[in-house]
């Protein structure tokens, strides 16, 4: 009896033959601490420099079904798109009058840009993710600007000048986006009326072609505003 093929191995003659050993594990660790999109940007850029579009295609084949954000981002890269600075202006308009922000979901590059753009804003990050991560290290990397909170402690951040920012992904044209599971745990009738705004920041506003593993489809109407990053 043969052993089962591990996820992302691509099978005995699959694309993993061309992929470095440990790619899946390395990506999983990076995605857990940088965010799915942030990790994918780094991996795709490095692979593209080394192996060009063929390498990005192989990366997508190896990891795509396990990491749908990476799959979508790699697909966008192959279509000619390149990551740029996050679009902050539309989000900052929604944060006018907001003094405290609780963030759900992790994308380190976007979080860094946001805290730099609003030095006066108090920011909490819900330290819970489906992927394993060293939250002490993640928070330490935020330069003292971000505090960790849990699902209970986030209510200590409630108030008329407080908002929740949820990082989402996917094409919202059909009225849904993909949110991290922490949003499902948090989004309830106890939380919703205690924060002035419930904002979705769409990190990767493109259609996914694989099942959105690690994330869940939620209604755009869950949020009081939705802006692309």
């Amino acid at each position: 009896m043969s052993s089962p093929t591990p996820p992302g191995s691509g099978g005995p003659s699959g694309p993993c033959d061309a992929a470095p050993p440990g790619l899946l594990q390395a990506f999983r660790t990076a995605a857990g601490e940088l965010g799915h999109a942030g990790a994918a940007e780094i991996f795709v850029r490095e692979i593209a420099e080394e192996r060009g579009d063929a390498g990005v295609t192989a990366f997508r084949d190896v990891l795509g079904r396990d990491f749908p954000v990476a799959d979508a981002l790699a697909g966008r890269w192959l279509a000619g798109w390149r990551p740029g600075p996050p679009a902050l202006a539309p989000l900052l308009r929604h944060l006018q009058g907001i003094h405290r922000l609780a963030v759900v979901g992790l994308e380190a590059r976007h979080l860094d840009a946001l805290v730099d753009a609003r030095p006066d804003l108090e920011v909490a990050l819900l330290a819970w993710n489906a992927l394993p991560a060293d939250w002490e290290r993640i928070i330490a990397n935020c330069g003292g600007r971000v505090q960790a909170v849990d699902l209970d402690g986030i209510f200590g951040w409630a108030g008329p000048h407080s908002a929740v920012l949820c990082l989402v992904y996917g094409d919202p044209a059909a009225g849904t986006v993909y949110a991290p599971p922490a949003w499902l745990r948090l989004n309830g009738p106890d939380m919703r009326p205690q924060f002035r705004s419930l904002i979705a920041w769409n990190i990767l506003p493109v259609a996914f072609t694989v099942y959105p593993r690690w994330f869940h489809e939620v209604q755009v109407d869950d949020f009081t505003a939705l802006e692309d990053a």
Partner: protein
Amino acid sequence: MPPLHHSHDRAAASAIAQALDAERLARILAPWIPDPGERTFVVRCIIGEGPIHHRGASYALLALAGAVAERLGSPGPGPGGADLAVPMRLPPHLERRDQDPPAYPLRLDPAGLDLLAGGEEDIRQVLVDAVTDGPPHHALANVALLNLLAAILRRIGERP
């Protein structure tokens, strides 16, 4: 427009939702909540959160009271009118004795409750507590309606 009734002869939730005019409610509340962002927050709490029948009932009562106030030419809160906080009800273990809880940006004008209390401070206090307690959609709708009624009473009192 979705069907008004389903098989149990109750209005469909989507039909109730479509009957709610957030802009109208925002206009009614504007004299008490000048900041547009804060007003949007309170309007959402009243007609965007909680059970759909509460949303519909609160909207109907507030829209009607708003219409009465408008016909009377009510200018909104009187001097020093809406001065009582509507606290957010945090989980009890997060409440701090040395610190007031955060409050909603809509404050209560107690003039109507004062009329009922007839100068009895204890009665006033329990009524204030009753109308500001409970789920936020309920408490805020209570306070918005009491503010409108206070404005209406004030206007009626000014008439010869």
